[in-house]
């Protein structure tokens, strides 16, 4: 669409203007809140006072005191560490399990593949229900363990189907020649299939990672001790529910307690930043990845 087709009449400037304004408003509605959250997290006491204790659009006096306070140990630092660990371990587990299962199911005439495909399809169709899921996690002894944030959501059945479809469209000659050269199935997976599936692995890995990072409901359901909280629960308590952050909840590195609002906004920013960091990578791949899902799923 970059060049206008010859048959198309030149754009009407008035219509173009209206369209641009509409889109501009939509974009501003997304950007302004982000900007304001970041600006407020960096604002110092006088700036906050000048705004009547509210959010600011421009941090007059910049202070990184809020970040120093929350990142120097204490509740937020611990929650961040937990969330990072859960995200990294969970994503690795998810990708291993998803690609392994998809690889098993992608072979035609592989032992047990046909009934297992039905099992996966069934898992896409039926959702297990909140209370029975909770009871299973409880029976397995996973309550209050970080594994409860990983294992129940480790394999997404739909992702398995997408990846299986991707594996199946790889040229069969690859597998034949590898088999002639004496490669085992595991070697073929690691040396040939996975390197060829980088795009789909990247998309899936990032979707899984975002899911683990954002996990709120499972954490609320399964994690009971406050010292095991991931960042989403810290966010709910201190930002959404506006519980005051006390001096004993931030690390020793905090010189003076910054005002509450920048502290809260700094927590919001640190919860946001990982998403903003992976987002460009996600972007590069997701249109393709999502389309594979939409077409073959």
């Amino acid at each position, binding site marked *: 669409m970059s060049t206008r087709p010859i048959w198309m009449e030149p754009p009407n400037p008035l219509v173009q203007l209206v369209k641009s304004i509409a889109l501009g408003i939509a974009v501003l509605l997304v950007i302004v809140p982000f900007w304001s959250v970041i600006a407020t997290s960096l604002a110092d006491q006088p700036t906050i006072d000048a705004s009547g204790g*509210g959010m600011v659009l421009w941090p007059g006096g910049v202070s990184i005191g809020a970040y120093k306070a929350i990142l120097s140990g204490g509740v937020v630092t611990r929650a961040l560490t937990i969330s990072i660990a859960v995200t990294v371990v969970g994503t690795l587990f998810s990708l291993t399990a998803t690609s392994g299962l998809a690889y098993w199911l992608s072979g035609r005439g592989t032992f047990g593949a046909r009934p297992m495909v039905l099992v996966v399809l069934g898992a896409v169709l039926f959702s297990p*229900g909140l209370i029975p899921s909770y009871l299973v996690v409880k029976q397995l002894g996973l309550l209050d363990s970080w594994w409860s944030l990983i294992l129940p959501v480790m394999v997404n059945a739909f992702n398995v189907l997408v990846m299986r479809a991707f594996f199946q469209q790889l040229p069969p000659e690859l597998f034949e020649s590898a088999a002639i050269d004496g490669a085992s199935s595991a070697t073929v997976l690691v040396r040939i299939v996975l390197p060829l599936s980088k795009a789909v692995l990247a998309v899936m890995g990032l979707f899984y990672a975002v899911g683990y990072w954002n996990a709120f409901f499972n954490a609320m359901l399964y994690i009971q001790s406050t010292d095991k909280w991931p960042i989403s629960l810290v966010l709910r308590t201190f*930002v959404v529910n506006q519980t005051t952050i006390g001096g004993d909840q931030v690390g020793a590195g905090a010189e003076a307690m910054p005002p509450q609002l920048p502290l809260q906004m700094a927590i919001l920013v640190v919860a946001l930043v990982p998403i903003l960091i992976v987002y460009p990578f996600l972007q590069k791949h997701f249109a393709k990845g999502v389309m594979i899902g939409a077409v073959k799923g």
Partner: protein
Amino acid sequence: MQQRVQRLRQFRRDKVLVALGLPGAIALILFQYLPLLGNIIAFKDYQPYLGINDAPFVGLRNFSFLWDGNPEFLNALVNTLILTLVQAVFVFPIPLALALLLNSLAGERLKRLLQSVLYLPHFLSWVIVIAIFQQMLGNAGMLNTFLVQNDFPMIHIIGVPELFKALLTTQVIWKDAGWGTIIFLAALSQVDQEQYEASAVDGANARQRLWHITLPSLKGIFILLLILRLGDSLSVGFEQIILQQGPVGTDSSEVLDTWVYNNGIIGGDWGMSTAAGLVKSMVGVLLVIGANKLAHLFGEQGVYQK
């Protein structure tokens, strides 16, 4: 006998493959199928200290909410249906409008840039989205601070029961409208360009082309999305609601999912809540199957083939 030998040989050949797939298979069976079996407690008088096996069967007693007019359940059901309807009307057309706007922009670069900005909120968790909304629209938020400083009256938006459904809908639009465009944009790029050219030769103007070519070619995808949504229509933003339920009270905010959570896990009425969850997911599956039949009647593909 021969078949068994063949199977054994097949297993020997594929055992590495099976081993690679097993962790994923076990996870699915444990966390997707075991809970399905666990729905048995919908028919039992389950108490946490008794365990599932020892709990006595009570038949359909737990399903009593279906016919005895349990006021809290009814309230949750009504709220769910209202939200479904409101969101279908207001949330659905916006991604389509945005996609058409983006598509009619000339520059590919600018389009990409705008897309990346508009997709972003989709990847944020509900906790973050709600925190941002509070900071923007809450009583101490940006909007009200501005109003108060300029001697205007405050506008109470958050924590007001009457506005709760509108607030939820706005949040859904903010979070996912941009993301919703992705599928429409893909469909738009598939539209046969020659149709536009031919119609232009026949003297169709831009609006006529939109009406007679673009929109009809989106019909299939539109119906597909509607069907998929229908299956989910009894799930209306669980995390989003549970996070904001406190200040507005349950009258205006309780929906089926939150009722199951509040009544079961918080309230301890395990059996009845499981029964409600079971009915909800069965209705969901039935809705998808029914909608798919309907799509076939209209000559559309639907989600799956006949």
